[in-house]
């Protein structure tokens, strides 16, 4: 065992050693250690390099606020995690970790050249330096900055772990299981409240774990803790450790991230790594405690310089002395107790450097008793030591004047600048903060949620105060929930209350340009940077933050915000509350993407909708594509065909004989009721009154702004019943829009709207032989052209199933769409395949459907329209019932913008070279020789190779396109400029003779 571990001391298991590796060196620690405590037990303080200057750094805290000791941890392929705080990563057998931000070895980092050149890297450096020349940005500046900046290295493999998520409802959620939180949970649970108590640490107890000398109700702190946790468990309190409240959202919803396996030696198969809880609590107690502030002086970032409270935690929780010769520098009483405890454990306390002129007499006396030199009214002006602090320079301060320096040798420097309440979660609720002039800190003010704040989190100090306040918060919460509760009194012995002073930078005798006093350790922000930002015109604290990056590191300003504010306020010349604090945002500590994603990944990323015919498509080798939430058969390759070959074959077969297509995803809405026709007249552009039952019509739906929202063929089945079809992706939107008008504008209409998309399976038959395939299967309707002309609908039986049979065409060929109840869809498909065998019936997918419709110039809403296309623009003026007094969007068709010349209009495009297939989205210009930037007049919306026509075809939206037929336009592309001629969109069978079979 190393000289820094004290046998038997702490809450670690001294009988169980755990092996791990850091930067390829093997170490041992104890069960219960963190990586940081285990390394410190070996005297290792150097754990990383800083972000900008690559300065050597060691842990400054013992908790989740740690800015310096960031490491990469690994547990095999895909299980590498960067930026893990060594102070919270629990040791596990075989853990492999590495330091970050170094070029070369941790002890000799080539990147540290930045440190020597620090005068070149002031605040706003990037903004100032990389402005010009513009062309250097892409090739030089950005790659270099990207390589130099950023923390850790991102893992490249897929994360093999699973992440769970759950909801939880609680009467009372208590955040933080230190003295206040424990008492709040206890009092509320005793009063009968259903309580959940969470803590981010591996074990509950908070500050009690670092102060075992305290006695509560006559029992040593740790005995009292055991008894309290046992009572909480027996009262049914849900106790959750390793669980961080990451965010406090509206109406008492709190997000919790629970770490489940990172501390385990072995993980069971499929055990989730983390679980995200969404908790809705009727009341919340925030008992998050306080964060110790660093002092700001030259060299305060050297390994071996850490917070005094952290040293106390390493000593009591982990049995680790952080050094053998310690100097304390403090402005708060609490650091004395750390010093006294370390002295008792055998660390030599060389001196306590006290910034206050007159610290409390009791503490002076205790220091005297222990033979510790107390330097009151002193400052620290520097530290030395290459990879670890070796000495500290202290100077007396009198009347604001810094006196002669004295160098003191040490191997650790423990600092305390006082404590600031952890306000993060409270700030998430937009609760207001109040400046407390006495303690020079912000305290929680007005609450916006049903919450209570207890203990050090609202500026109280000392165990008795925290315990009593927690008990009161628990009793208050219980009463607010309607339970009777009265907080029982507590007695505390050996308490350690205290007060302190706040500082900006400590006074120094160094030239200000030579002082490097860090505020934000992780982002390498110094006090000088903050003052420079103010000098350069930043007045708002939000601007100072962004200019310097102070508080923008992964610790979310836990260490730096108050110190940064004090210095900025001084530089601006205002009181701190007038300058204000930057906003704390969730998450409280860095949280994995996996925990947020939860089950929403891979196959369960979102719902996949499948049609009843999907199994047949899969069994027959279909390639699928996603269309909104549906997966649709894209094409059916045969014998090693690629997509182009398969689509060409499907197209030819459909035009030559018959093709079969699964159209079940079409949106379907039933519009029923006495006022159905009036409703349809008001919703769609077309006139419906004269549409006879048994007939259908292509309908266009506009928004009130006059732009095309959706389209589809609509069949009238009876006077009071319409079968409306919508685009595949548009069905929910259309139904929502219809419901909106029906419920809120025309509630007097007697109409019912029902989504029937999933009730019907729809199979489309297209091609000259379509009728021949269908004939033998149909009962109850005459399929002849005379009895059932194009655009008609009938209710009948097909293949023995009740059916709604449409004669319509989205291909330009003789076409039928057969709707049967969804459960019969597959059987219908198979019956049609069988019946179609003599005609070489060919199944086709969405790609062929797209090509066939484009050959006819039929639009796809959302592809050939983009939400700014009016019916006239798309060549659909014929679909407007001009005699109707009103319909949704009618008034807008006369808006000045919609009647102005030069609107983008849908046209056909034929490239000069029929072998060139244009890119959808390609921009169109009239003159390819004009200077850059060229005037773009439109873009390609659809583009395919047409097997039928033996060349490429395209559709495009072009300014004034309808008047430009026959004109040439140009498409500058990376591989050269293409010339194309504007044509009609009807590329194939323009007079529709093929429909007349």
């Amino acid at each position, binding site marked *: 065992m190393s000289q820094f571990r004290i046998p038997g001391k702490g809450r670690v298991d001294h009988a169980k050693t755990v092996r791990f590796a850091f930067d390829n060196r093997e170490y041992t620690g104890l069960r219960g250690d963190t990586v940081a405590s285990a390394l410190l037990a070996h005297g290792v303080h150097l754990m990383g390099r800083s972000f900008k200057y690559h300065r050597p750094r060691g842990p400054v805290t013992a908790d989740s606020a740690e800015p310096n000791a960031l490491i990469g941890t690994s547990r095999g392929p895909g299980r590498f995690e960067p930026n893990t705080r060594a102070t919270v990563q629990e040791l596990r057998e075989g853990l492999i970790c590495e330091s970050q931000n170094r070029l070369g070895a941790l002890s000799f980092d080539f990147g540290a050249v930045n440190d020597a050149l620090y005068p070149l890297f002031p605040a706003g450096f990037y903004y100032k330096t990389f402005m010009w020349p513009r062309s250097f940005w892409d090739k030089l500046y950005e790659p270099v900055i990207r390589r130099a900046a950023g923390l850790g290295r991102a893992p490249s493999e897929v994360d093999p772990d699973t992440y769970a998520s759950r909801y939880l409802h609680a009467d009372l959620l208590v955040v933080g299981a230190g003295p206040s939180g424990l008492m709040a949970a206890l009092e509320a649970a005793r009063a009968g409240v259903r309580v959940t108590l969470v803590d981010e640490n591996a074990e509950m107890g908070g500050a009690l774990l670092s102060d075992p000398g305290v006695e509560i109700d006559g029992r040593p702190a740790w005995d009292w803790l055991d008894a309290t946790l046992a009572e909480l468990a027996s009262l049914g309190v849900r106790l959750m450790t390793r669980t961080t409240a990451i965010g406090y959202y509206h109406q008492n919803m709190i997000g919790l991230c629970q770490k489940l396996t990172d501390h385990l030696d072995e993980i069971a198969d499929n055990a989730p790594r983390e679980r995200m809880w969404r908790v809705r609590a009727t009341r919340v107690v925030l008992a998050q405690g306080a964060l110790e502030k660093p002092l700001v002086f030259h060299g305060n970032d050297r390994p071996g310089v850490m917070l005094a409270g952290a040293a106390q935690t390493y000593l009591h929780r982990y049995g680790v002395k952080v050094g053998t010769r310690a100097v304390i520098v403090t402005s708060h009483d609490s650091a004395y107790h750390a010093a006294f405890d370390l002295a008792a454990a055998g660390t030599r306390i060389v001196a306590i450097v006290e910034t206050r002129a007159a610290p409390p007499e009791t503490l002076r006396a205790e220091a005297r008793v222990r033979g510790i030199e107390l330097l009151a009214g002193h400052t620290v002006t520097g530290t030395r030591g290459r990879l670890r602090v070796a000495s500290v320079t202290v100077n007396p301060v009198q009347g604001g004047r810094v006196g002669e320096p004295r160098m003191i040798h040490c191997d650790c420097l423990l600092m305390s600048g006082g404590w600031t309440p952890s306000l993060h979660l409270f700030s998430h609720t937009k609760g207001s903060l109040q400046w407390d002039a006495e303690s020079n800190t912000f305290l929680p003010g007005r609450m916006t949620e049903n919450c209570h704040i207890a203990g050090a989190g609202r500026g109280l100090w000392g165990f008795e105060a925290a315990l009593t306040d927690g008990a009161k918060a628990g009793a208050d919460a219980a009463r607010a929930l309607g339970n009777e509760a009265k907080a029982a009194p507590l007695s505390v012995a050996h308490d350690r209350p205290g007060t302190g002073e706040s500082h900006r930078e400590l006074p120094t005798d160094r030239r200000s340009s030579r002082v490097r006093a860090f505020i934000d350790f992780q982002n390498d922000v110094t006090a000088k940077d903050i003052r420079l930002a103010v000098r350069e015109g930043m007045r708002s604290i939000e601007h100072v933050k962004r200019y310097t990056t102070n508080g923008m590191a992964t610790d979310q300003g836990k260490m730096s915000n108050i110190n940064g504010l004090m210095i900025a306020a001084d530089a601006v010349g205002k009181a701190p509350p007038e300058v204000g604090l930057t906003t704390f945002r969730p998450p409280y500590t860095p949280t994995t993407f996996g925990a947020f994603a939860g089950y929403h990944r891979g196959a369960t990323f979102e719902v996949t909708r499948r049609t009843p015919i999907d199994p047949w498509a899969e069994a027959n080798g279909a390639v699928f594509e996603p269309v909104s939430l549906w997966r649709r058969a894209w094409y059916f390759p045969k014998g090693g065909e690629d997509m182009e070959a398969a689509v060409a074959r499907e197209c030819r077969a459909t035009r030559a004989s018959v093709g079969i297509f699964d159209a079940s995803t079409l949106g379907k809405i039933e519009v029923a009721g006495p006022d159905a026709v009036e409703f349809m007249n008001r919703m769609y552009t077309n006139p419906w009154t004269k549409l006879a039952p048994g007939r259908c019509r292509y309908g266009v739906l506009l928004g009130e702004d006059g732009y095309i929202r959706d389209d589809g063929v609509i069949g009238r089945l009876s006077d009071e019943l319409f079968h409306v079809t919508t685009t595949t992706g548009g069905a929910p939107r259309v139904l929502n829009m219809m419901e*909106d008008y029906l*419920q809120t504008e025309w509630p007097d209409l007697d109409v019912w709207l029902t989504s029937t998309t999933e009730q019907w399976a729809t199979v489309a038959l297209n091609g000259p032989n379509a009728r021949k395939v269908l004939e033998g299967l149909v009962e109850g309707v005459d399929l002849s052209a005379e009895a059932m002309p194009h655009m008609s609908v009938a209710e009948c039986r097909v293949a023995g199933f009740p059916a709604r049979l449409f004669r319509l065409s989205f291909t330009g060929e003789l076409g039928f769409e057969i709707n049967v109840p969804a459960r019969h869809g597959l059987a219908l498909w198979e019956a049609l395949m069988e019946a179609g065998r003599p005609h070489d019936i060919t199944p086709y997918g969405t790609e062929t459907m797209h090509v066939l419709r484009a050959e006819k110039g039929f639009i796809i809403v959302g592809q050939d329209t983009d939400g700014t296309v009016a019916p006239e623009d798309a060549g659909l003026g014929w679909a407007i019932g001009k005699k109707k007094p009103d319909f949704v969007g*009618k008034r807008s068709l006369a*808006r000045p913008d919609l009647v102005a010349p030069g609107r983008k209009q849908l046209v056909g495009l034929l490239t000069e070279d029929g072998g060139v297939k244009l890119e959808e989205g390609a921009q169109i210009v009239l003159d390819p020789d004009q200077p850059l930037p060229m005037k773009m007049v439109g873009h390609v919306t659809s583009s395919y190779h047409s097997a039928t026509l033996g060349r490429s075809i395209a559709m495009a939206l072009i300014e004034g396109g309808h008047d430009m037929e026959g004109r040439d336009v140009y498409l500058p592309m990376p591989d050269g400029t293409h010339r194309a001629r504007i044509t009609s969109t009807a590329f194939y069978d323009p007079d529709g003779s093929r429909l007349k079979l």
Partner: protein
Amino acid sequence: MLLIHCPYCDETLPELEFAYAGEAHIARPEDPSTMSDEEWRDFLFIRSNPKGPHFERWRHVHGCARFFNAVRDTVSDRFLLTYKAGEPRPDLASLEAAQ
């Protein structure tokens, strides 16, 4: 995630069940053809966008599917009231006094 009271179901339910549907109390004109371009523009596009209480529509889309009205404070994101479609616009002063 907000909790929203559906005035039709008379239940307070998670926001996930609801969809926002724009500003409330903007009735579609009886006869749009009589409106000037400016009037029609105002109806289509001009909204109050207040800082503070906002009258707005929501739909209990994954519940009863009804549209209803609400008053929500855009600063605090807090609902002051929800009420059925067609009910008169509530008086803001008395509503804020009640809060």
